[in-house]
């Protein structure tokens, strides 16, 4: 008999008096769960839920942050949606999603396939190394990569050695290269996080499923699609959801590397919102962008949930 069993047995034999006392214990215990939740709920309601409603309502006004707000209905949304810059910003967010959400998941799946099949030694070292970038502030990441991408920086030095001086470029100042260059930074930040998540999931896949697949003569590829991938459903959903939100609201990286430029090549919806509201005093349109961004995030998360949700 294990300790747990013993405890359970004792608990069972004494269950009756306890429940009787619970009943006579009246108001205190019935109110208890609500009292426990209340403090957290107050903070959450005041500083998350109420402000969401505030953003919604601000998006219906024309306001410079100082004078009296003027009701304009849905005009801000009409203006913002008619502005080609808005569309461009959401396209930038989409490219970030490709780089920072989908690509890391693909890379991590390849690595998980390699690791689970060969029982790699030194796995904890690799995990530590891969996860490290995710712990950095994006402000730190931005500064590091400003240097890496500089015309005289280390990446251009490597390119110069391999491809010659003609192939070097100031990546972050280049209209065509700035966005993919920041995308690569996004991959660098998130792929280790996704990998560690998927690896911990892969450890819970029963070994006999693999043995079974091998008995059936499955090669590494079929084994991956038949056993590993289905076994990682939950972890995939979590990884996709978190990196999706992370990519769609990308703000720190473009602000500190390119300030959204060159032109609007790397301006994300978050950056546009920030500039509208806190730089240009256009509160209404900025709030409208915030609302649109939130809707896009909710739709994206719902889509991931549908694709990878519980059976």
């Amino acid at each position: 008999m294990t300790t747990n069993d013993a405890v359970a047995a004792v608990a069972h034999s004494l269950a009756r008096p306890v429940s009787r006392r619970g009943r006579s214990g009246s108001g205190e215990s019935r109110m208890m769960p609500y009292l426990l939740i209340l403090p957290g709920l107050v903070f959450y309601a005041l500083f998350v839920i109420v402000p969401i409603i505030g953003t919604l309502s601000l998006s219906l006004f024309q306001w410079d942050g100082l004078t009296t707000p003027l009701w304009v209905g849905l005009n801000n949304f009409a203006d913002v949606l008619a502005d080609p810059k808005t569309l461009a910003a959401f396209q930038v967010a989409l490219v970030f999603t490709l780089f920072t959400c989908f690509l890391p998941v693909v890379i991590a799946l390849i690595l998980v396939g390699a690791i689970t099949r060969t029982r790699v030694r030194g796995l904890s070292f690799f995990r530590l190394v891969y996860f490290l970038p995710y712990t950095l502030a994006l402000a730190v990441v931005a500064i590091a990569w400003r240097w890496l991408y500089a015309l005289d920086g280390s990446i251009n030095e490597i390119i110069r050695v391999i491809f010659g001086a003609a192939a070097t470029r100031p990546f972050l100042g280049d209209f065509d290269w700035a966005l993919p260059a920041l995308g690569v930074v996004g991959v660098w930040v998130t792929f280790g996080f996704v990998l560690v998540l998927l690896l911990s999931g892969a450890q819970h896949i029963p070994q006999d499923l693999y043995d079974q697949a091998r008995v059936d003569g499955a090669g590494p590829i079929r084994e991956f699609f038949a056993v590993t991938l289905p076994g990682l459903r939950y972890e995939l959903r979590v990884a996709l959801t978190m990196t999706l939100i992370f990519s769609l609201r990308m703000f720190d990286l473009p602000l500190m590397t390119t300030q959204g430029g060159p032109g609007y090549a790397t301006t994300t919806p978050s950056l546009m919102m920030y500039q509208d509201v806190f730089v240009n005093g256009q509160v209404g349109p900025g709030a409208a962008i915030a609302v649109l961004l939130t809707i896009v995030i909710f739709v994206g998360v719902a889509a991931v949930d549908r694709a990878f949700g519980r059976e």
Partner: protein
Amino acid sequence: MISRRERTLSYAILFIFAVFSLFPFISTTLVAFNPPDATVSGLAIPQPWSLGSFITAWSDPDAGIGRSMFNSMVLATVVVSVSVLLSILAGYAFGTMKFRGRSVLFYFFLIGLIVPYEATIIPLYFEFRGLKLIDTYWSMILPDIGGSVAFGMFWMTSFFRSFPHELIDAARIDGASSWQTLWRVIVPTSGAAVFALATVLFIWTWNNLLLAIVMISNPQLQMAPAALNYFVGRQFGINYQVTCAAAILVALPVMVVYYVLQRRYGADVLAGSLKG
């Protein structure tokens, strides 16, 4: 059986990505050890090695890296301790008790896992400006706690749900109230989960740039990431060794926290704790 070639290929793939992960750290560290007035290019291997850029970054009176790190530390300490406490309380209720409205309240909290700060920061700013809270720690502490409890309560709920019920029942039988059970039985045995939550919330709070640049404009009160942003925007923008030195100074506390905790609990716990 796994062939030798397959094994070699696996290691090659792992190694390539390890280089991809580490190269920016190495390159940034190398450049930061150059003297502040050197012209750096290429791999920027320092000659001679110098701590000058770190000293310049640390002592620059306008940016105030040291002061900003102190501010961030105060902020993170307050936000993490309050959020963890509130999350334990709410998670205890959601994870171990049955009551009316439980699932409605739970889903209400879940919204907070998805809502970005972008959706809340505009009214928060104007509300705080009206209350004269802009340029005080409150303007960051309050929204950070609000943003943290949704995740924290979710994390603690899923942990408490898997907590052995026998232990809880046994404590009740011994006459402990539910409040005493929480603090004498459950919390003392939940170290790993609580620590992991604290780590994640610390990293999130320490790294929050948007809130920091919107709410704080007084340089004396600036947070660490905002100080870096200021640094990049001003005279040091293209002095790569000094900006990189500043970035390393700001990154170190978080990396130390991460390293210590992953030694203790393993990277798994941390990644697991990041499940949203």
